């Protein structure tokens, strides 16, 4: 079992840290699944009952890592599956964030055994106060998940949704949902094929309706939507406001657009395209009012 990867691009390193920082805001532990050409992270598996939502990130290794070598324990196996503290990972990568104060030449990830298995994060950093590169090493303790248990750590699938809307005002949406969690425990996402998204929070004290008009419509299922293309259709789903707020508040990525898919009264699917092959997903299950 071997894993070695190296990053050299400052922008990618910063993004990679932003992903880890997002995960750290959502859960204590995260799962890292290493495949030949992919790296995945999962936090808050579905059976988890916390107020944080299920979130997963898939990274095409060639996008971020010029070098990416993964050798499973046995040749017939596809993956290496590790569990680690999301906070540790985020802290270990924090050095990659500092763009102006210091520059990072490279960052290596290496699976090692030191008393217990660790992912060593080795960054070569040049600080403004000196010209010499320094080596900063953090050994993130990991637990290796045996193949017999992999079934519990399967990568979730994006559910089919009747409608997918691209919201360009992520900043406003984040602030709005954060405030709405103090108004009502549940929040209705209502989308229409006319390119409109409504968020409704209702309580005894207040009703708050926010309209995002002229949003981009992405049709998730061509065949289905062909049928109702003429008529205006709308779909809605009610979700836990705190869960939604936890997701939006956790985001540490600079994206301004988010895709929101609505599966009528089943779930909301959120998708953040960090780059074309680096995607963050989340599912907010429906709640009954």
């Amino acid at each position: 079992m071997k894993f070695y990867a190296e990053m050299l691009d400052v922008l990618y390193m910063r993004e990679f840290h932003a992903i880890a920082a997002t995960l750290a805001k959502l859960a204590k532990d995260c799962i890292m699944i290493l495949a030949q050409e992919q790296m995945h992270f999962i936090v808050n598996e579905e059976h988890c009952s916390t107020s944080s939502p299920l979130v997963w990130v898939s990274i095409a290794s060639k996008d971020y890592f010029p070098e990416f070598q993964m050798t499973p324990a046995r040749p017939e196996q596809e993956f290496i599956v590790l569990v680690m503290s999301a906070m540790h990972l985020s802290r270990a990568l924090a050095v990659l964030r500092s763009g102006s104060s210091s520059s990072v030449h490279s960052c290596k990830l290496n699976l090692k055994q030191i008393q217990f298995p660790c992912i060593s994060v080795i960054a070569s950093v040049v600080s403004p106060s000196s010209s010499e590169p320094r080596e900063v090493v953090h050994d993130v303790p990991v637990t290796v998940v045996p193949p017999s248990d992999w079934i519990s750590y399967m990568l979730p699938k994006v559910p089919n949704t009747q409608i997918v809307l691209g919201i360009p005002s992520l900043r406003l949406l984040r602030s709005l949902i954060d405030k709405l969690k103090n108004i009502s425990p549940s929040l209705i996402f209502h989308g229409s094929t006319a390119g409109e998204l409504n968020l409704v929070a209702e309580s005894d004290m207040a009703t708050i309706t926010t309209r995002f008009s002229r949003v981009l419509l992405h049709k998730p299922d061509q065949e289905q939507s062909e049928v109702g293309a003429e008529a205006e259709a709308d779909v809605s789903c009610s979700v836990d406001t705190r869960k939604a707020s936890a997701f939006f508040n956790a985001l540490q990525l600079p994206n301004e657009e988010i895709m929101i898919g609505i599966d009528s009264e089943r779930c909301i699917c959120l998708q953040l395209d960090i780059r074309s092959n680096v995607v963050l997903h989340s599912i907010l299950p429906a709640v009954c009012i």
Partner: protein
Amino acid sequence: MQHSKVLYEKGIIKNRKMLTQSQYEDYQMACHLKHIKTFYSSIKAICFSDFGTLEANEDGILISVEQGKSIQATLFISAAFFAEFRIDGSPSFSVKINVLAECLSLFGLSDCSVRILYKGEGSPLLLLLEPHDDDQVSTECSIKTTNMEELMEYDLDANSSSLNTIFMRGPDLSNIFHELDKAADEFELTISPLKPHFRITTLGVMQAETSVEVAKSSDMVILFNCRETTVARYKSQQIKLTNKAMQVASKVAIKTDASGLLELHFMMNADDQKEMYVRYFITPLLETEDN
């Protein structure tokens, strides 16, 4: 409310009471504010109790909040502050003040314009918010109102020989209050024609007693009107409730007399210099009468 009505018809919005059917012209109160920033920070400054009462007339709007029978805060917004201000009669009602504050801050730091609408007794208070930086987004808030609760009446006798009045620069006074020992239980306020002129002493801190004095000739004092010395003690917790107003005030007026009742006026910063201020009444602690 046109949009909310559509959603009600579709069954998305359930609470019919929160919708009003009236045309725009039928509202008892219809005001339009171009920038909510000062309004929001003023509401936030008096947000220390559950309910606030709103009273409106041709001159403007008053929003009052009380805690117990010892502290009252009132926000005054003159009609000139609004881009549009139409009042029919003198509507008054109570609302949950923190819900009002949350609604005004739905879009965080983005500046918004707001329309404030009220149809009459039993109707909700409507806020229509539009962020300036994104015209594709708008919000309709409908906040439940209840009948107005009676407010305490406080008054300082304007003809009293012991009435002392000081005007100070807001940021400087805010610094002084900010630096008072947080651990203190009580603050003693002394205003006197001779030295120390203006003094705050912190009481109830273990192993230490601290005080701060400002001479009347200080540049932070705009007006110093004092004939008799007044000394009174206040609960530090109540003085701290004025913090948020103090932090954003450009000028502060301090008034008190021999009774010890403290009246504070905070001129709120507004970009267009139109009037909006918060007035506090704070009752003194009884022990001072022994002194």
